[in-house]
């Protein structure tokens, strides 16, 4: 069994790919068929992932690798492959499980969309690419899948092409991530140039194993940073985070699957995967590259959390929280807590998907209204959505003990606290925790409490096909914490090749109390601030945010995302416009002239050769043709059209041949 799955691990991504192809070949009306195909593909992938998960449980530090030669040029053989280790296995499980829920959800959410079929084709395509990314054992293969998921996200963000905003967002996402991928690709090339292989694990001489690492030497840090660029782009870290909020233009299931649960986590996963390069030559767990990672993570986490406070679009809030959570994961990776980061990634995958789907359900209920200020009072109208959403919110804002998010955040904070370089990140993260609790509370209050406002007048609970995935994900978000508790840190040890053992004493720690206090503070603050949000009082009109009322400049600053987009459009975009204009001018006035000059030369030469033809050659040719024609006339006379004449000629020929042979003999 285990042998089989290791040999056929490629099936896991292959199945959704095939499904997407099949769906693409369907007629545009075939909604049911498309849905069935996609979900079936996802289910198969899930089952296969479970099969793949089992063998990794048996031995700690299990790692099975399967490499093959893609093509050979000269004496180099470019080899690809797939790897099955705890990291890949848990990612597979998470992606397929969440993906399945989201697929089912979107059969309800997208019902009645004209391009239903296309949507599911893209979705399956994405899931295939993502799974491939997770299992790939070669940086090149990983890069390919990386680009494929980029493409999928582009297609899905711009799914509603008719909306200009969607098209723009898609372009933005694609270009922005491309900037990061540029760095990634450079890093890849450099890595290949130094170590001569792109395989991660290759029986001792893969680029993540001692031999390969040794070859990197001093350049490891730079390579790591270049690769990190890709991660920054993909998972929306600080300089390149601008595309992620805009990506919310896509359908909500897409935001849930791609821009919350899986794809944006790919960056984190990448760092975790090539961690040996980052940590190469580390002095007590600190290297230059890791430090960069930490600071960028911290910046992102805090900034995004701040911006999230002042957003009104329900999905944008979640998007910014995603960004900040990703920053959190980056920090934990940077400070050396790979396991912690991955755990948070997984937990986050569940509850963030849950939140997005909840948001989707809310939006669906409110007839595609996304502004939270227009909602409210949905608590009674959509009870299931409300409960699940609340669970998600708790998990996100890290309420301890019962919610997976809490435990993982504990882990992260724990490792961050012991970072030898500085304690600043730790404090920032604590602030981040408070902020997270705050903006989630704000959102909950706006959306579910209070009395109904314009959009939520006629809202009603979504169909079960949408609510059931919510419930499943919610239960995941809770039950998942079983394997996370410090009392029985099974997942942690599973990821760090240790052996888990139960010890109730570790359950309660001082840090726990601290974070409890922080979360309580955040939520309390939120409730206090927004207790009468949306209710006009004597000074403040209904649709102004209490914070805005209190601190207009600060609020505007945050609301406009700290003017980072504006900054970019002033600098980067303007610069590229400039250069484009310049090259255009060059093209018109310089290169064109040059080309025309050459053209003139050519014409001159042509005229010359033409004259030579006229004078020198033609006459002879004409003579020849005339001669040929005359000959043809002569011969064609013999062509009488009488079959029997031909026959007799043949017979005469045969006879002549016979006689000739006789004469020879």
């Amino acid at each position, binding site marked *: 069994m285990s042998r089989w799955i290791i040999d056929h691990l490629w099936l896991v991504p292959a199945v959704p790919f095939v499904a997407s192809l099949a769906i693409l070949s369907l007629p545009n009306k075939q909604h049911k068929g498309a849905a069935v195909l996609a979900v079936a593909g996802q289910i198969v992938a899930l089952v296969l992932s479970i099969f793949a998960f089992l063998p990794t449980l048996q031995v700690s530090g299990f790692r099975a690798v399967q490499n093959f030669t893609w093509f050979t040029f000269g004496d180099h053989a470019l080899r690809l492959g797939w790897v099955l280790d705890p990291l890949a296995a848990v990612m597979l499980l998470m992606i397929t499980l969440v993906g399945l829920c989201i697929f089912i959800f979107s059969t309800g959410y997208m019902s009645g969309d004209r391009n239903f079929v296309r949507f599911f084709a893209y979705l399956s395509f994405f899931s295939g690419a993502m799974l491939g990314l997770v299992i790939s054992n070669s940086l090149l293969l990983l890069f390919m899948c990386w680009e494929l998921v980029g493409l999928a996200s582009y297609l899905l963000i711009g799914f509603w092409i008719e909306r200009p905003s969607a098209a723009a967002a898609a372009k933005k996402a694609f270009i922005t991530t491309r900037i990061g991928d540029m760095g990634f690709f450079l890093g890849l090339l450099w890595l290949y140039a130094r170590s001569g292989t792109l395989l991660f694990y290759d029986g001792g001489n893969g680029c993540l194993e001692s031999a390969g690492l040794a070859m990197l030497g001093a350049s490891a840090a730079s390579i790591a940073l270049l690769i990190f660029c890709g991660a920054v782009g993909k998972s929306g870290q600080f300089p390149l985070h601008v595309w992620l909020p805009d990506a919310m233009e896509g359908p909500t299931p897409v935001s849930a699957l791609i821009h919350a649960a899986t794809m944006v986590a790919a960056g984190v996963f990448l760092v975790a995967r090539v961690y040996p390069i980052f940590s190469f030559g580390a002095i007590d767990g600190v290297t230059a590259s890791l430090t960069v990672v930490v600071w960028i993570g911290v910046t992102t986490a805090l900034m995004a959390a701040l911006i999230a406070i002042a957003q009104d679009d329900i999905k944008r809030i979640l998007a910014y929280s995603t960004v900040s959570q990703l920053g959190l994961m980056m920090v934990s990776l940077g400070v050396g807590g790979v396991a912690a980061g991955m755990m948070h990634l997984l937990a986050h995958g569940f509850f963030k998907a849950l939140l997005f789907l909840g948001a989707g359900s809310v939006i669906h209920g409110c007839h595609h209204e996304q502004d939270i200020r227009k909602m409210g009072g949905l608590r009674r109208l959509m009870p299931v959505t409300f409960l699940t959403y609340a669970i998600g919110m708790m998990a996100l804002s890290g309420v301890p003990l019962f919610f997976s998010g809490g435990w993982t955040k504990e882990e992260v904070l724990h490792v961050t606290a012991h970072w030898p370089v500085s304690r600043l990140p730790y404090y920032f993260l604590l602030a981040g925790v408070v902020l997270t609790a705050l903006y989630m509370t704000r959102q909950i209050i706006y959306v579910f409490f209070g009395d109904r406002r314009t959009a939520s007048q006629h809202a009603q609970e979504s169909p079960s096909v949408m609510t059931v995935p919510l419930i499943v994900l919610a239960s995941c978000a809770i039950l998942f914490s079983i394997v996370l508790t410090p009392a029985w840190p099974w997942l942690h040890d599973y990821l760090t090749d240790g052996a888990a053992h139960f010890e109730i004493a570790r359950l309660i720690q001082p840090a726990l109390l601290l974070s409890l206090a922080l979360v309580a503070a955040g939520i309390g603050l939120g409730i206090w601030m927004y207790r009468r949000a949306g209710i006009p009082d004597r000074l403040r009109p209904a649709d102004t945010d209490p914070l805005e009322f209190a601190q207009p400049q600060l609020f505007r600053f945050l609301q406009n995302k700290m003017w980072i987009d504006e900054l970019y459009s002033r600098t980067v975009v303007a610069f590229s416009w400039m250069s484009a204009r310049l090259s255009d001018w060059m093209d018109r006035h310089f290169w064109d002239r040059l080309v025309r000059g050459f053209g003139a030369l050519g014409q001159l030469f042509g005229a010359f050769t033409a004259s030579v033809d006229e004078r020198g050659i033609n006459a002879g040719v004409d003579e020849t043709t005339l001669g040929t024609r005359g000959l043809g006339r002569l011969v*064609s006379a013999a*062509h*009488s*059209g*009488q*079959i*029997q004449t031909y*026959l007799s000629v043949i017979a005469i020929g045969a006879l002549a041949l016979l006689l000739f042979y006789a004469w020879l003999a």
Partner: protein
Amino acid sequence: MTPTLQIFLVVSAALFSTGLLAALSRRHAIFILIGIEMMLAAANLNFIAFWRFSPQPQPPTGVMIAIFSIAIAAAEAAVGLALVIAVYRHYRTTNVDHLDQLKG
């Protein structure tokens, strides 16, 4: 006396030239075809005769070739006759003397 290979060859030669005669002297398109069929039959007779008179045992090459050539001759006859009919449809004649539109 038992017939030698020579006799057979002479017979088949006679058959062949009779076919040739038919193909050359007849004016009717179908009979040109028949003449060709007869020549083929003569050729088959040769093949069989040579196989029979070759040292035995031996792979039955002659027989094989004869069988194949019979099959091919059948195909040829079918197409040829179809052609004759098609030609007849156009020119209302099967006299090859009148079918010389292809003259140079």
